[in-house]
């Protein structure tokens, strides 16, 4: 009788690391064996969909959807909206979409169950870490803007802002611990690969830059603000967000990770009047612009200009914009989140002329900054984002940098 063959651990493995490789800080929820395996399964599902299902959607587009459109209309597909609507008539796209949507919903249920069942204990833990600390400045008069309230981004019930009781951190903790499903480890042990990428970009491209006061708008739990605060320990960092649960959790997370030069402030990025003109040397946003509205984006850009000291810089890190040379199929796939994952502004933001928006906000065109940054992670444990060829259309840890010098 032949012996059954077990998987060989030494075989080349490409895919997400085990969730247990994540770092646990003092505000991190307790996660049981089966809760971890739910998250591992969903991370693998995302990987499977990207690596093994999307190629089938792509070939369906090339061999069936696009030729059928051409035959019916006597012309090629003209834009990404036509491409998406044509794809919606093909079962390969619909089945992939259905699986992707339910993976996202399963992720929210898995992450929220873990956090909700222990949320009183978590809130106490966070309160102990942040009690009487003036680094946490909440302001209950901050209204939740419609672009946040109307639909819950990434299908996270309650989004960043909903509080279930006084002192609650549920949605901050869920966003932190189960974000692993979406990033599949590509953002590293503390999900801070994007922040580390920003640090690396600034150190390489602006080697003489010595910021004293740094602001991040839309900081959530500080995934990208903390690496910046750590890299410039003599600087004073401020993170603002509209959501109290993410800010409370963020400060507790920062303190337990030993980062003490950061404040978390509840404020709407469109109105940062609590800070006087020319308060900051550096203003950062990271994967934030696509969650705004057109008017909010313009107002926030104007606020960044007002708040920068002469010679100060603003940097926005985002997924790549749609350009005429981006294949129509790729544009349609990148647009998926806008229509089916509650990112309503994603589509429009990625076609905006951001240079023009920066100029309209008062930045001189010759002072605009453009660049590329990729996720920086602990390579011993995590796959390197720069070396991962799996195309996930919108989730890959490779970003565009747009900014300006005041």
């Amino acid at each position: 009788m032949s012996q059954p063959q077990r998987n060989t651990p030494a075989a080349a493995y490409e895919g997400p690391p085990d969730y247990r490789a994540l770092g646990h800080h003092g505000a991190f929820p307790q996660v049981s064996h089966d809760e971890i395996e739910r998250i591992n399964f969903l991370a693998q599902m995302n990987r499977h969909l990207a690596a093994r299902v999307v190629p089938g959607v792509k070939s369906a587009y090339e061999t069936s959807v696009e030729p059928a459109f051409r035959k019916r209309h006597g012309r090629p597909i003209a834009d990404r909206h036509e491409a998406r609507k044509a794809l919606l008539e093909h079962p390969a796209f619909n089945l992939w979409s259905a699986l992707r949507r339910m993976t996202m919903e399963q992720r929210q249920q898995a992450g929220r169950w873990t956090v909700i069942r222990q949320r009183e204990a978590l809130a106490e833990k966070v309160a102990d870490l942040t009690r009487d600390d003036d680094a946490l400045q909440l302001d209950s008069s901050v209204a939740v803007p419609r672009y946040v309230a109307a639909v819950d981004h990434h299908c996270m019930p309650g989004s960043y802002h909903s509080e279930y009781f006084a002192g609650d951190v549920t949605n901050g903790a869920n966003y932190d611990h189960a974000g692993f499903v979406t990033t599949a480890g590509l953002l590293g042990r503390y999900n801070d690969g994007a922040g580390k990428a920003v640090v690396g970009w600034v150190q390489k491209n602006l080697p003489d830059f010595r910021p004293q006061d740094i602001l991040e708008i839309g900081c959530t739990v500080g995934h990208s603000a903390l690496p910046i605060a750590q890299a410039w320990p003599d600087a004073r960092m401020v993170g603002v967000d509209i959501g109290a649960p993410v800010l409370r959790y963020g400060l507790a997370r920062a303190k337990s990770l030993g980062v003490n030069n950061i404040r978390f402030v509840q404020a709407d990025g469109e109105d940062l009047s609590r800070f006087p003109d020319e308060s900051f040397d550096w203003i950062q946003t990271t994967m934030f612009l696509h969650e705004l509205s057109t008017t909010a984006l313009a107002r926030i850009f104007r606020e960044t200009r007002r708040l920068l000291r002469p010679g100060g810089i603003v940097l926005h890190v985002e997924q790549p914009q749609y350009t005429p040379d981006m294949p129509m199929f790729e544009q349609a796939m990148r647009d998926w989140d806008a229509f089916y994952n509650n990112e309503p502004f994603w589509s429009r933001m990625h076609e905006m002329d951001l240079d023009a928006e920066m100029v309209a906000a008062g930045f001189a065109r010759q002072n605009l900054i453009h660049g590329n940054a990729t996720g920086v992670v602990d390579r011993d444990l995590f796959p390197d984002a720069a070396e991962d060829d799996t195309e996930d259309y919108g989730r890959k840890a490779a970003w565009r940098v747009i900014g300006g010098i005041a």
Partner: protein
Amino acid sequence: MSVMDALAEAGAKPAGKRPWFLDEEVETILAITMAVAQELAVTRQRADTLERLLEEKNLLSREEIETFRPSAEASVERALANQEYLARILRIVQQRNEAAKQPNDISSEDVGNDLAARS
């Protein structure tokens, strides 16, 4: 907070109308199936955890599992368990086959109407 509240909130619908990509009933069943697939994956990982721990503690060699040969009696029990399992999960196929053989099958509604009719 009660367990019922936690279950309801964990599964809550996000704000924003849900898109349906397939027939809504089909997609509902697919969602249930994928949730079951997730739980099966969790269970398999748990079994793997148990096997590894038992092996570490020298209570079991996993080689014993891989080379396990049930007795004749156990083989029959296990084969019957598989048959029962298959019949359960494929019950809908059995019922469709049976229905195809009953062209004059009548619905309960029609029976009710028949019985209520006054001649």
